[in-house]
């Protein structure tokens, strides 16, 4: 799937959530839209499938509750945004923008996250190949060196946020970037691989030992998904 298509479709539908036109992008892997409404995408594996790296209980709450709340709130604020646009109420539109960014970002980030994880029985943890493997080796020397830098970036997040392996849409080069809260990877960069560093992503299993979570999650990273996002 194309991450930039997903991004475009979310933003576009967020801005005209009440548009009656049925979505032509409903078939996009990871995210489904029905009549301009965001809906919770199905997980491509069972809740318990990422154990022992991530517990079934975490996965269930994370997908069924947290992600669902972002979807519900995005639809709610998108509706308000559509009304504000209809009334040409610029003040209300600006006031709603951070809500769209946060909840829309939450929806985008989690949709990409579920897809860039996989059970070990389905290729989770198998190292990247092809163009992405080449880019990682060129930029970081080795996959292990990249993981080390990525984990340092994750550990350095002050508060809630995400770390992403991204591709610069202008130069094509890859890099590691962190984003606060639910800020999505938009604009100059294209998301390749994201790891959720919110406490709800690991706390029930790892508590304050987040370094253990950052180490374990590589066992279930779906590099095939990241490869498909690379252009």
């Amino acid at each position, binding site marked *: 799937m194309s991450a930039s298509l997903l991004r475009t479709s979310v933003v576009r539908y967020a801005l005209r959530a009440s548009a009656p036109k049925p979505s032509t992008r409903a078939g996009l892997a990871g995210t489904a839209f029905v009549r301009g409404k965001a809906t919770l995408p199905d997980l491509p594996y069972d809740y318990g499938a990422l154990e022992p790296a991530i517990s079934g209980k975490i996965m269930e709450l994370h997908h069924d*509750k*947290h992600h669902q709340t972002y979807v519900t709130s995005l639809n709610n604020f998108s509706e308000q945004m559509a009304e504000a646009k209809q009334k040409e109420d610029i003040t209300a539109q600006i006031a709603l923008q951070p809500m769209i960014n946060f909840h829309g970002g939450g929806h985008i980030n989690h949709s990409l996250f579920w897809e860039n994880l996989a059970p070990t029985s389905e290729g989770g943890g198998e190292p990247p190949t092809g163009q992405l493997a080449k880019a990682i080796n060129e930029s970081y020397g080795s996959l292990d060196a990249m993981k080390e830098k990525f984990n340092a970036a994750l550990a350095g997040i*002050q*508060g*809630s946020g995400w770390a992403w392996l991204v591709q610069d849409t202008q130069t094509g080069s890859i890099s590691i970037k962190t984003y606060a*809260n639910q800020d999505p990877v938009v604009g100059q960069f294209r998301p390749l691989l994201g790891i959720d560093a919110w*406490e*709800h992503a690991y706390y029930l299993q790892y*508590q304050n030992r987040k370094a253990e979570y950052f180490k374990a999650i590589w066992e279930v990273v779906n590099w095939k998904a990241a490869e498909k996002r690379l252009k």
Partner: protein
Amino acid sequence: MRRYTSLPIALFSLLLRSSTCVFASEQPQQPFEFGAMSASTYSLPPLPYGYDALEPHISAQIMELHHSKHHQTYITNLNAALKTQAEAVHTSDIATQVSVQQGIRFNAGGHINHSLFWQNLCPASSPDAKTSSAPKLFKQIKATWGDEETFRDAFKGALLGIQGSGWGWLVKVEIGKEQRLAIVTTKDQDPVVGKGEIPIFGVDMWEHAYYLQYLNGKAAYVENIWNVINWKTAEERYLGTRADAFKILKASI
């Protein structure tokens, strides 16, 4: 309780230490001894109650992790950052002095916020948990918000509106002769240290503050924490100065 048998001894030794510091703090504080390249080091202030004292509103498991692990980590990282800063000052390494600032802000903020937080909580059974322990503060709360319920709703709304990690505070703002109350939210570990701002009580909205017990149900946490707000501490901070509110931090040096 069996897990906490060593607590009274730890508490006693820390109290001893902090009382020594009260005398020491009457002299002007030197943040750095440049000659020795050393900085003040902070230590974990003891909880003024047992880990299980806030149950059922906040579980003992949360309190123990939150205090002995999370708060301790902020202190450990703060001390390391202050040491780096002191060395950079000593060697006139201005680039390092600047680069270490964000780390100091975050970890010092974590230390400040949690130190204030423990003190502005108390067991629900304590008389301090009754709003009648804060008569003067409540007079101004009512003058500002109309009634207690409106105030609580406004505070709860602010807490639930935080996007990501952060805190909600009731703050006294004193600028010149003007004095007012305000509900403010802060992101991550940003502390309430602005000019003329005195934190009265704070609520931690990081997920680690409630997740083991409330999971994604943060509205229930925000509802239940009102049962364990220490209104006596709130009244003292409201009537006191900024230095009074932060004295716990000097005691933990």
